[in-house]
C-alpha cells in the first residue's frame, strides 16, 4: 500500500469526524512518528474505523429498505449500472431512481418542496447553482461522506458547509461523426458556415450540461458567439445526450456533446468520435446532496458514501464516465489532469443560467 493512500485513509477518519482523539493522533502521527512508521500501522486502523461506521449505517439503512435517487449525472444506462453495483455491494436496499435532465428534476424537487412532499433522498443535478438555491432554503442536510478524501484535492471541498459533494465528473466537448473531413478542433470552428445544417445541440432550459456550456462559452467569447452559431441552424434537442443520437443516426455531423455517452456509443461500434477542444473542454463537477427531510436518511448516507468507493469509480469507467478516484483509469485514455479544461464558478452559474436560458430563447427561438 502506497504512502499517499494510507494518508488518504487516515484523512477519511478525520472527515468522518467521529473522534477528536483520532484527529490529534493523526496530527501527532504526521509530525512525530513520521510517515514511514505510519505505513505499517494505518491501513488496518483506518479500515476498522470506516467499516465500523459503514456497518452501522448499513444496518440502519437495511431497516429503511430503499433509497430514492434523482439524477441528471449520466445516461440511463450508467445510472442503472450504479444502481446494480450498489445493490450488489449492499443487498437488501432497493435503489429507486429516475434519470432526467437537470432542470427537470430540479423543477420537480422545488414542486415537491412547495407541496411539502417527502419523496427524494439523494438529489444529483449537474447544475451547481441548484445547490446554492437549495442551501438558501435550508433543505439540504450537511454530511461528510466516508471516503470523500479519495477524491482529487480540487474536488474535495466544493461546499465548505458540506451539504453537497462532487458526485460525477464530465466534460462538454466536441463530438462528431467518424470519418468526417476536418472535424472542428475548437469551439469557434463551429461558427464556420461549412457546418450549416450539420450541428446538433441540447437546450439549456432542460440540460444542466448545456447550461454550463452556454455560460462558459458566453464568458469566453461573449453572446455574439451564439448569434453567429444560430446562423448555422443547429438542431436543438433537449438533453445533451440527444447530440449523440443525432450524430450516430446520421441526422447531424457535429455537436457540443458529452464525453461519456459519445465514448459509450463509440464502444458499441457506432460512428462517433470526440475532440477535446483546444480552447478548453468544459468540466462539469456534478454535485450530489442529501435532503434534510429525506424519507430514508441512513440509506441516503450509505448511498452517498458509495460514490467515493472504488466500485463506483469502476462503474463510472465502465460506463464511459470519468471516475471520481484517480486510482481508476479514465475511459477516454486521457486522465483528467492531462485535459485542458475550464470550469464555471457556482456563484456565476446561479446568476447566469436563468439569463442564459432567456437569451438562448431569443437567439434560437426555442
Amino acid at each position, binding site marked *: 500500500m502506497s504512502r499517499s493512500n494510507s494518508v488518504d485513509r487516515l484523512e477519511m477518519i478525520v472527515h468522518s469526524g467521529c473522534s477528536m482523539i483520532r484527529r490529534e493522533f493523526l496530527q501527532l502521527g504526521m509530525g512525530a512518528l513520521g510517515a514511514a512508521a505510519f505505513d505499517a500501522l494505518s491501513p488496518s486502523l483506518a479500515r476498522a474505523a470506516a467499516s465500523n461506521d459503514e456497518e452501522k449505517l448499513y444496518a440502519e439503512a437495511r431497516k429503511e429498505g430503499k433509497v*430514492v435517487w*434523482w439524477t441528471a449525472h449520466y*445516461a*440511463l444506462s450508467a445510472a*442503472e449500472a450504479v444502481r446494480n453495483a450498489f445493490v450488489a455491494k449492499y443487498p437488501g436496499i*432497493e435503489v*429507486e*431512481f*429516475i*434519470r*432526467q*435532465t437537470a*432542470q*427537470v428534476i*430540479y*423543477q*420537480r424537487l*422545488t*414542486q*415537491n418542496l*412547495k*407541496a*411539502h*412532499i417527502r*419523496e*427524494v433522498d439523494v438529489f444529483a443535478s449537474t447544475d451547481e447553482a441548484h445547490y446554492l438555491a437549495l442551501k438558501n432554503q435550508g433543505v439540504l442536510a450537511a454530511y461528510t461522506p466516508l471516503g470523500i478524501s479519495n477524491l482529487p484535492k480540487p474536488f474535495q471541498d466544493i461546499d465548505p458547509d458540506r451539504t453537497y459533494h462532487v458526485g460525477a465528473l464530465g466534460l462538454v466537448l466536441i463530438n462528431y461523426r467518424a470519418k468526417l473531413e476536418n472535424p472542428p478542433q475548437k469551439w469557434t470552428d463551429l461558427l464556420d458556415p461549412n457546418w450549416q445544417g450539420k450541428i446538433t445541440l441540447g*437546450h439549456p*432550459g*432542460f440540460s444542466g450540461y448545456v447550461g454550463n456550456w452556454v455560460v462558459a462559452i458566453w464568458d469566453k467569447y461573449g453572446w455574439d458567439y451564439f448569434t453567429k452559431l444560430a446562423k448555422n441552424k443547429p*438542431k*436543438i*434537442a*433537449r*438533453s445533451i*445526450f*440527444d447530440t*449523440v*443520437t*443525432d450524430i*450516430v*443516426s*446520421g*441526422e*447531424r455531423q457535429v455537436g457540443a456533446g458529452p464525453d461519456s455517452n459519445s465514448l459509450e*456509443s463509440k464502444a*458499441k461500434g*457506432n460512428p462517433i468520435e470526440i475532440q477535446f477542444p483546444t480552447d478548453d473542454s468544459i468540466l462539469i463537477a456534478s454535485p450530489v446532496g442529501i435532503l434534510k427531510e429525506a424519507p430514508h436518511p441512513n440509506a441516503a448516507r450509505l448511498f452517498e458514501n458509495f460514490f467515493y468507493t472504488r466500485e463506483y469509480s469502476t462503474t463510472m469507467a465502465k460506463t464511459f464516465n470519468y471516475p471520481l478516484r484517480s486510482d481508476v483509469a479514465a475511459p477516454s485514455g486521457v486522465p483528467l489532469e492531462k485535459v485542458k479544461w475550464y470550469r464555471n464558478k457556482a456563484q456565476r452559474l446561479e446568476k447566469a*443560467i*436563468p439569463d442564459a*436560458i432567456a437569451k438562448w*430563447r*431569443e437567439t*434560437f*427561438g*426555442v
Partner: protein
Amino acid sequence: MVPEAPVGSSAEHRFHARRRGLDLSIAVWVGVAAILLFMVIVPLAFIFVASVHSDETDRLTLANYVEAFSRAIYLQPIRNSLLLAAAVAVVSCLCGTLLSWAVSHTDMPARNLIRNLVFAAFVTPSFLGAAAWIFLAAPNSGWLNRAWVALTGAAHGPFNIYSLGGAIFVIAMYSYPYTFAFASNALELIPSEMERSAALLGASWWRITWRITLPLVRPALIAGAVLSFLEAIAEFGTPAFLLIPAGQQVITTQLYLFFQFPTRPNLAAAYAIPLLLVTAGLFVLQQRLLRRGRFTTVAGKGAVREPFRLGRWRWVLFAICIIPPLCSLILPYSALVVTSLSRAWGRGPLPGNLTTHWYRWALFENGAARMAIQHSLTYASAAATIATVLAIFTAYVAHRRLLPGARILAFVAVAPFVVPGIILAIGFFSAYARPPIVLYGTGWMLIAAFATRFLPIAYSGSESAIRSIDVELENAARTLGSTALRTFGRITLPLLRRHVLSTWLTAFIPSLRELSSAVFLFTPATAVMTNVIFDLSDGGNFEPVSALGVLMMAMAFGLIAVAYPVIGRTVLIHRQGS
C-alpha cells in the same frame, strides 16, 4: 281501532320513506355537485386567480397578461398553434370525409378493414406516432429518406418531420378519425330518397355526391373539423417531439417551458386563459352546427342504400383510402416494433442488432418502468370508474329531470371538454398541490385529473344510452312505490349494463394513453407509462420508448379485443364522435 293502527303507521311509514328518499336525493345532488365543483370549477378558478396575481409581490395585477401578450417570443407560439390547428382541421376533414364516404356510399373493397383501421388510429396517441415518424422521416437519418437517397442518388431525402408541416401531418393522421366518426354518422342518417331521385334522373355518382350528399352533411363535417382543431391546439406530445428540434414553439410547449426552471406560474396562467376562451368559443360553435345538422336528418332514417358501383375505380379508391391508415398505423407501428427490438435504432433492422432486451427491461429489469405500467393500469381503471359512475348518474338525473338544477350538473359534466389537458393540469396543480387539499404526490392527483378530463366523453355516451331506454319501465316501478334511487339501481342500471361497459372503456383508453395532463401532475413515485415514455424520449432512448409504447398499445388493443364481442365497434367510435 285495530285496523286503524297499521293504516296510520303505514301512511306514516310511507311519508317517512318519501322524506328519506327526498333527503337522500338532496344529499346525492349535493354530493355530485361537490365532486364536479372539485373536479372542474375549483381548478379553473385557480388558474384565473393565478393569472391576475403576482406571487412575488402577492398583489393583484394585470402585468402577467401584458407580458404574455406583448413579447414576440410568446406571440410566435400562438401564431404557430393557430396555424397548426387550422391545417390539421383541414387535412383531417378531407381524410375523414373521403374515408367515411367511401365506406358508407360505395362498393369499395375491404370497407370493414378501413373502418377498423380508422378506429385503431383513433386509439393510438399521436405522440407515439410522432416518435415513430422520427425514425421514418427525420431529414437525414429517417429510413424513408435514406431509402429515397439510396434509390435516387439524391443528396437529400424529401421528408423533414422536424417542421410545422411534419407536426401537422402527424397530428392530422391521428385526428381524422373524429371527422370520420361525425361524417359517417351523418352519411348513414341522411335520407337516401334524394340521392335515389337524382340517380333516377340520370345524375352520375360524382354529381350526386358533390351536389346532394356533401351539402347535406356539411354541418357534421364542420363540427368534426372543429373537433380536430380542438384536439390539435391542445396537443402537447407531438409538438414537443417534433417542433422543439425545429426551433418552433406552440402554446402548449410554451406553457410547459413556463413550468421549467425558472418557473413562471402566473405568466403561464395568463397565457392559458385566451386559449381556454378560444376552445370554449369553438365548442359552442360546434354544438350549434350539430344541432342544425340534426335538423336535416329527421326524414328518411333507416332506408336501405344502394352503394355506388364504381367498377374499376373501386380499387383506385381503395388505394387512396388506405393511405391515411398506412401513415397512422402500418408504417408507424412497424417502425416502433422494429426499434423496440433493436439494440441501437440508428443502425437499422440488421440481424446483429436484434434483441428482446427492451421488453425484458420494461417488464422486469427497470423498476421505474414496471411501476409505471402498474400505475397506468390502476389509475386509468380508477379514473374510468369514477368518470363512468359520475357520468351515468348525472346523465340519468339530467335526462329524467329528477332534481332541481340537474341541467347545471349536466353542463358542468361536459365543460372539461373545452379545457386542454395541459391547462386542466395547471389548474389541478395550482389547486391541489398546496393545503388544504394536497393530492400532488399521490396517485389521486392523476386519477382525479384523468376522470375530469374524460368525464365529457363518458357523459355523452351515457346520455345517449339513457335516451335509448324507455321511461315506462321506470314509471311502472315508481308507480308501484319504488324510490328514485331504487328504481335506478334495480331497473335502469341493469338495462344499461352493456353501455356501462362501453362508457367505462371509452374513459379508460384515453386515460391509459394520456400525456398532456400527466406530464404536469406526476412525481416520480406516481409516474405512469406516458411519463416514462416522455422522460426517456430525451437523451435519445428511443428503443425503450418504443418498447413501452408497444406494450401500452398492446394493453389498449387487448382490452378492446376482449370487450369487442360484448359492445361492438360502432358503439365505441360513434360514442367518441357524439
